[in-house]
């Protein structure tokens, strides 16, 4: 298999992860889009080597034909990731309308639990033994 296609898969995924870890909602969605591309490409690359399109009449008996099954799966995946991204964008839009803020804040409830836990932890360690 070609080294270079694996490299593309890896770079797309890596950049996707980096964007996913950001605080800006739009960058997170862009990151997800890149990870989706990476996954689709992975399906293709893993599915088999490149070849003639699997269309009757487009290949002769001696030609290598690209595997149609991963293509079908990737086709489904492309469309579904589009659906998911659209939905996320709608949420981001809604969030902007409501808060005028494109940033993912810490979960308020979780943060409160964390505070309690930290206080507990401090008491735990500073306790005379």
């Amino acid at each position, binding site marked *: 298999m070609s080294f*270079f*296609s694996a490299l593309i898969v890896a770079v797309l995924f890596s950049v996707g992860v980096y964007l996913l870890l950001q605080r800006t909602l739009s960058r997170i969605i862009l990151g997800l889009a890149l990870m989706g591309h990476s996954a689709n490409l992975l399906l293709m690359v893993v599915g088999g080597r490149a070849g003639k399109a699997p269309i009757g009449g487009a290949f002769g008996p001696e030609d290598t034909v690209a595997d149609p099954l991963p293509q079908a799966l990737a086709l489904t995946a492309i469309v579904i990731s589009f659906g998911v991204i659209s939905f996320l964008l709608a949420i981001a839009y809604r969030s902007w309308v409501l808060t005028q803020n494109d940033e993912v804040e810490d979960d308020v409830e979780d943060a409160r639990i964390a505070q309690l836990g930290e206080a*507990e932890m401090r008491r735990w360690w500073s306790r005379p033994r």
Partner: protein
Amino acid sequence: MFVLILAFGCVAAVLPVLASRIGRGVFYVAAAVPAAAFIWGVGAYGQISDSAPLIEQAAWVPQLGLTLGLRFDGFAFLMLSLVAGIGVLVFLYAGSYFHAEPIIGRFAATLLLFSGSMVGLVLADNLLALFLFWELTSITSYLLISIEDEKTAARSGAMQALLITGMGGLAMLGGFVLLGEAAGTYSMAELLERPPSGSVVNVALLLVLIGAFTKSAQVPFHSWLPRAMNAPTPVSSYLHSATMVTAGVYLVARFTPAFADYSVWRPLVISFGLASMLIGAYRSLRQHDLKLLLAYGTISQLGLMMLLFGVGTKESIFAGCTLLLAHGIFKAALFMLVGIIDHQSKTRDLRKLDRLGAQWPVVTATAGVVAASMAGIPPLFGFLAKEEALGALGETGFAWGVPVLIGVVIGSSLTVAYSARFVWGAFGPRPVSMIPHQGFVRNEAVGQQVPKPSKMFLAPVFVLAVLTLLFGLFPSLIDPVIARAYASLVGVRAEHHLALWHGFTQALALSAVAIGAGFALFSWRLRVEKLQDSMPQVPSAQRGYDRTVKGLLEGADAVTGFVQHGSLPIYLGVILLTMIVLPGIPLLSDGVMPDLWFADSPMQVVVGLIMIVCACAAAVARRRFAAVLLVGAVGYGMAALFVIQGAPDLAITQLLIETLGVGVFVLAFRHLPADFVRSKFRRSQGVQIAIALLAGVFVFLFTLFAIGARTEPSISGEYLDKAYSEAGGNNVVNVIVVDFRGFDTMGEIVVLAVAALGVAALVRAKRSPAEVEP
């Protein structure tokens, strides 16, 4: 036997309803059930012999090969008569102890369930059924201890009992499963007949012993027993004598003939038993609450029973059976006496009680007899048991026999001392303790006139006192029962018989020493108390328990706070790292590298490089639309790669979707500021890059190994052959999507529809809830 156990549950179910009509009469109704069990036991006792027990089997979960087996042999009879016999007396006693409290219906029902679980426990042959009944006694005892649920002390005491015995029960379950798997059977009789071997058995026995020690309140798991004293006295009386705490002893007694020679057994059982005997008795001497005094005494006596069964010689098992019965009788009676004192004089503090003896001569005499039995004074049953114990320990033949014997003699003299303290404290003429008590007044109200208990109230105590006297004077009455219990444990007929007089033996001499030393300790009680007070405070088990529970709760808070801190990037980072590390390790160790070449075509390299550059630029872009367009460019690059790969359908789809996608991005972002906000969380950028790089490396390796992992040819050959002949299409990918795998496409359409609905709803929603209202 099944009917018998079910009867307890069925009658218990109607008791609460009955209680609202007949008041405390329910206790007499409830007493009928253990009475029936006792009578059944006596009848069945005639049908069994030393070697042929009564067995009943029923399919439990046949799919798992689980059979619920019940087994009635000599030892089961001993236990059953203890549980049922004392049960009857406890119910009769409770009938006088309570008046018309609203809890009595619930109380009687729970007590009956408790009794029934204990009956089930001693009859069960299947280890898992035994565990089930074991846990039932834990749960019902929890309900009983906390029956007066408005009292904080009762609730926390009940919780402590449940936590400690429940923890032990879980350990025991683990032990049972290990044993059952090692032996290939969960039937206790078969297991004991052919005990498995191997190191796993020692681990299993350790776990089983933890269960037995927690249940039988052995040091250091004993703290729940004194705190269970918050229960009404009938419960204490039952729990301490015949049920619950004897369950652990019962288990050790059953296991000891088969497992005594395993390396963990004797050292553990003997050392825990001896420690419990000494510490329990020592602490008992410090108590001022009569109930607590007896509770620590129980710990001490249980320790001795553990020790006797743990030694595992024939004589010591015989002695253990005797002590089990003797202890059940005298301890139940003593608790009932404390209940009577508490009930009539409203206190059970021996510093306040004064001159009860002069007012209640008959009660005092009875208490004297029963306590003397506990102290092991002839000619009472307790003396016989103590003699057997000292005799058996004197001839173990082990090197550690002598120190253990000395320990037991010390423990026995402490027992004599606290027995004397009990009688003197409850009925004697003046306060036994010199430790000043806050607000101590020579209790005039108590000292003057305490109402005499009714005859019905005293009757159960009399019955028990008569029994302990009768069995002491005429041991041949009870000898066959103990001999049969012994025979069913050990497998051979007893050659030894109970007797009041064995001649001038070592045991007799040691008994005399113990009694003498005990009375000496008692007569110097003020000095002893002073000495105990001046001793350094050793960490008590109660404090250990409190700290453990507090630490667990605080630790849980701290962990929750640490794990659930609310930052999305950190959650994602943890998830991604897990994704990288967990599959990454086996990947690196087992992965297969495929044959590699650099690229499929020069075009691939060109397109790929453009994509990589665009992706990296999108990562660092500061302007929102620049980032969107760069990601869009990557998408078009994807289309090009699909063409190179030989997937024109994908390429077309990708082009269309990407164009649409960029449109949607623009629509969604058109109101947002042109630049990304510079995040206030910039500290963690290095970590983010590191995680991203790690993920990239992982996916790179994963891709290579996934290619190399292919072992079978693709199944698509069939699709290629049949696309035209069966589905009438030349484009195989199209045929797969709409025909061969049509349901996938169906699902995909549903996803799109749902997403579209969501998008429509979100976009059309009003700015804020306030806008909906005009």
